């Protein structure tokens, strides 16, 4: 992704087949593809090893098949967070006051792609693997906070969507004038609210040390997750901010022509 105002000319000419505002579309589609491979791969891993080696956390095989996966995830999450966030910050645009309208429009498209990738990760974390947790708890007695589904859901999926949400927030803050001048309330809500879902894992697992009831999903102990996900509604405000600015920029271009 081009990240400074000086790159406007090169970024608009680098792809002949795509219009200038969709220059980052191939990366966006590759992001979708990569995430799909990761999530489907993790589900296939569960299918292969959860029942055979994931029912009893005291068995050596559990350490081998599941705790090792957990450690690998921690390393990947740390690398991805520092890599993406570090890149976005270090390559920030230091000349935002000279940004051309066309380049700003392109960046709004790229921001929308970042948010879209974020919501794709929210889908896997909030929909598929979240409800799958109920399915697993109905067939396996909970004897550890690191179950075959928690290792993927709580300690990989949740941090990953937090990282991707953080990427969207940082991208806007470092590359778009309005988001650099002020802190967008809806974008902040939509990123930091779902982040609190990750924090709620602590409350949830602490609660389950008292109540290992397996598993009344609607129990109040889970409602911390629910409140966190309400903040995803902030995306409506991001959309309004984006559309308003795009209208202004398009008019500016038209007036100049």
């Amino acid at each position, binding site marked *: 992704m081009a990240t400074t105002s000086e790159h406007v000319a090169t970024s608009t000419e680098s792809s002949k087949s795509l*219009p200038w*505002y*969709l220059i980052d579309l191939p990366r966006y589609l590759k992001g979708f593809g990569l995430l799909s491979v990761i999530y489907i791969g993790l*589900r296939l891993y*569960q*299918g292969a090893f*959860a029942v055979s080696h994931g029912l009893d956390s005291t068995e050596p095989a559990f350490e081998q098949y599941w705790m090792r996966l957990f450690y690998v995830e921690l390393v990947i999450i740390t690398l991805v967070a520092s890599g993406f966030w570090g890149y976005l910050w270090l390559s920030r645009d230091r000349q935002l006051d000279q940004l051309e309208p066309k380049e700003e429009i392109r960046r709004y*498209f790229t921001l*929308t*792609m970042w948010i*879209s990738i974020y*919501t*794709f990760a*929210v*889908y*896997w974390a*909030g*929909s*598929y693997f*979240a*409800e*799958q947790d*109920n*399915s*697993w*708890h*109905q*067939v396996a007695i909970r004897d550890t906070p690191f179950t075959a589904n928690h290792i993927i859901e709580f300690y990989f999926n949740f941090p990953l969507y937090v990282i991707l949400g953080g990427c969207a927030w940082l991208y806007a803050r470092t590359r778009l004038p309005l988001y650099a001048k*002020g*802190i*967008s*309330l*809806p974008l*902040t809500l939509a990123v930091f609210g*779902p982040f609190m879902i990750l924090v709620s894992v602590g409350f949830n697992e602490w609660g389950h040390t008292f109540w290992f*009831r397996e*598993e*009344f*999903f*609607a129990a109040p102990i889970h409602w911390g*997750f*629910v409140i966190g*996900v*309400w*903040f*995803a*509604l*902030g995306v*409506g*405000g991001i*959309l*309004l*901010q984006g*559309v*308003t600015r*795009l*209208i202004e920029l*398009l*008019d500016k271009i*038209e007036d100049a022509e």
Partner: protein
Amino acid sequence: MSAHIPVSTFKPYRGEKARLARAYDYLILVLALFLFIGSFHLHFALTVGDWDFWVDWKDRQWWPLVTPLIGITFPAAVQAVLWDKFRLPLGATLCVTALLLGTWVTRVFAYHYWNYFPINMVLPATMLPGALVLDALLMLTNSLTITSIFGGAAFALLFYPSNWPIFGMFHQPVEYANSQLTVADLFGFQYIRTGMPEYLRIIERGTLRTYGQYATPLSAFCSALLCSLMYPLWWHIGKWFASTRYLTKI
């Protein structure tokens, strides 16, 4: 500071402007689809999920009450933005369709293929007819009050009849071990779940069982009242989250 859409710009886009706007629409469509599957599904599963997961939880007393009550939340919040700001009368249908997609994928791959629950035991309920009425009423009346009262009530009252063709067959009585059960109960006893003790205590407790066939309409009308109140509450929650403010510090 907040955003204002200049009225003078409301004229049809042509040429590159139109293509750009259409490309942006498609990006938003993909974004919104996964956003509402992920967020509405989590909200729904962790508040009334058990009633939706299992066929033996689809009772006459709680299911028609709590499911529409939680199901109307995100539709109202999304309508507040899509109708109010974009004149798109599809907020409720979008949310409910997204939820259905998410639940179906999970029931098939997480319950059936992973843990071998029969798919008939974990069929999701539908709220689509209620969502269509909610969207249509808002579009036709353009009134929060009328949509709250009549749309909210319709959303709740349509829930049980629209699900009856899917789940009615599981209410057939069977005699098993000298007791009378429903087919749904039999599923529950045959496929032992670790949550069984709580599950057996929660469903259809109290004396409402003696009300016989009146339990369902009573629950549905109670839900209609609560949905009429829940709808405007979540409309305003949706509006609040869709703020366009920029802050100076957080």
